[in-house]
């Protein structure tokens, strides 16, 4: 039974002691192997993006996980428990944001433009429906100010499948890297124009209910600017983001590297 134990005898002492020991050793080894096997399967099925967001969402603070309906004031206080995917959220289904009055074409929050002809993702990407049924995906104005003129975006190759809340492209600037989450499910068709980054053919049955629009997007942007101010104050000891109440055009130049890094992480939810 235990051939590798010198002098093993069929006594209760040996059996209990070695039995317990080898059971524990087997359980530990088996659990590690099971974790390795599951990891291997996840990588093989190319589901790393889903795991990434699941892990990243857990690391967000309650303030960062704030429900969109709490941001707009529809609910007093609520944290999202759906990983920012409102498509399966019962609360969201009950609380579709209602807005009265005429809808302007564009709004502004501390100098950050919020065009209202598109949908916004909470990771600062936007989506616009093109006339041909495809979707254009780009960075919002705050994202653009982080990217600046000398920043680079690593775009996914045409044919790549992108999924909501999974990393779609990588922003690089000043030695800082940040993953930008995809706002849509679909297949990348290639680079886009008109301020967008990529053009995507939406997946069958793709819905936009998880995305923000109109007044809700404006309220969210206000919340975002406020959040970034706080993060900067926490990182540097002083509030430095706003200059005369407006967000600088090029945040990469306006901020020291560490603060820029912090803002990138918070804005793109890549903490």
């Amino acid at each position, binding site marked *: 039974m235990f051939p590798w134990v*010198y002098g093993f005898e069929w006594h209760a*002492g040996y059996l209990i002691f070695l039995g317990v*020991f080898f059971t*524990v*050793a087997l359980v*530990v080894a088996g659990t590690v192997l099971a974790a390795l096997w599951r990891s291997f399967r996840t990588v093989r099925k190319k589901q790393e993006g889903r795991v990434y967001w699941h892990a990243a969402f857990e*690391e967000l603070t309650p303030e960062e996980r704030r429900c969109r309906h709490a941001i707009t004031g529809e609910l007093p206080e609520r944290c999202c428990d759906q990983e920012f995917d409102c498509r399966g959220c019962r609360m969201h289904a009950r609380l579709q944001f209602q807005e009265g009055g005429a809808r302007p074409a564009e709004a502004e929050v501390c100098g950050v433009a919020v065009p209202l002809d598109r949908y916004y993702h909470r990771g600062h990407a936007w989506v616009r429906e093109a006339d041909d049924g495809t979707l254009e995906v780009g960075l919002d104005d705050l994202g653009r100010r982080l990217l600046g003129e000398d920043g680079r975006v690593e775009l996914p190759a045409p044919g790549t499948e992108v999924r909501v809340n999974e990393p779609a492209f990588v922003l690089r600037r000043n030695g800082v890297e940040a993953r930008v989450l995809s706002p849509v499910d679909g297949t990348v068709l290639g680079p886009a124009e008109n301020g967008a980054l990529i053009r995507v053919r939406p997946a069958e049955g793709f819905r936009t209910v998880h995305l923000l629009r109109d007044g809700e997007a404006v309220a969210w942007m206000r919340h975002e600017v406020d959040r970034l101010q706080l993060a900067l104050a*926490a990182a540097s000891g002083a509030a430095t983001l706003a200059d005369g109440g407006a967000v600088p055009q090029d945040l990469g130049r306006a901020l020291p590297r560490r603060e820029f890094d912090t803002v990138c992480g918070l804005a793109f939810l890549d*903490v």
Partner: protein
Amino acid sequence: MVERLDEAWIARGVRRAPFDRFLLWAAPWAALLALGAYAIFLCLRDGLFHTNMDNRYVFGLWIFLDLAVIALGAGAFFTGFLLYVLKKTELKAVINSAVVIGLVCYSGAVLILAVDVGQPLRAWFTFYHPNVHSMLTEVTFCITCYLTVLLIEYVPILLKNRRLKWKPSMLVFEYNLHKVMVVFALTGTLLSFFHQGSLGGLFGVLRGRPFAFREGLLIWPSTFFLFVLSAMAVGPSFVALTTWLAEKAARRRLVKDEVYQTLGRISGKLLLAYVFFKCLDTMLWINQTAPERGFPAHRFYEYGGAFGTWILFTEIALLGLIPALLLLKPEWRARRGLLITGAAMACLGVTLNRFVFTIQTLALPTMPFDRLLLYWPSWQEFAAFGFVVAYGMLVYSFSYRYLTLFPQERELAMTEARR
């Protein structure tokens, strides 16, 4: 430029000292580590004559250190048990730190045991020639197993490093390991329970040492259960104490107040239970066990000095009952200074308990012709001790700098900024 050398490895949104200042902090510990490594080398090369241990004093500073750090390191298994099994979710804020402390304590203990045994290359003999009737065999098996469990528990913390988690495979493995952490928490609890107990049992079964010998239940002397209970009691206290020290060193809040309160409350309750059972055990020992073995208990304390009755009083009342009350009473526990004082006293109490069982047991004479033996460690023993301390400080410092030991740190920094 040097101060920014490692910025890419530091988590986003948290503040860390510049790299050059961190190096300055690490340098003295590295020097102590080097000195300790030299002493260990001498002991391994030439033998244990470099120490002041002998055939009478077979357990010295090193075994005392082992027992103390293993008791203090119990915070790792117990915090894991509270979080993953009893679902005390607020302890998520300190579980990573507790794991690192546990890892440092256990790996340090195993390292020093390897030097003490003197033939580390033959360490595997204990697995191939196990004496299943020996408490020491059980300790060896459980400590090595639990150290493996702690290393596995450390892996997800390590893989959450900012650079490492950019590699998708690492992130996925970390995620999957994290999902099965409850299994490691349970096995860790089982292993820890038995080896903490067996460490106590080691002394309780010393029939030739009436000072340590105790009656018990079945094959386990009472010291088996008291060691388990005391380790469980001070584990949360040590986690609270180290968290507070880390906060002081970093000059920022790392966990919310409720975490301290939970740790203090649990520690206080268990400590009070421990003090109660320790009193019972001591009374039984004074009135029954010791006299039956031909030694009225007062004889153990008639040498005065370092081993007088004061040590018993200090261990049970001063460093047992008082910290238990400090940690139990909500009004006192709510004051951070009192909570940390209570936690520190509890840690000192269990350290003193291990000192008594290791050093005092061996110092007291058992034969009519024996005399009280006093022992003072050699510089090599102190240096090896220093090696473990320096190693612990460095591992913890590097872990704090590059890994997320306190997940609430970022949120608390934002809260502070809001004020």
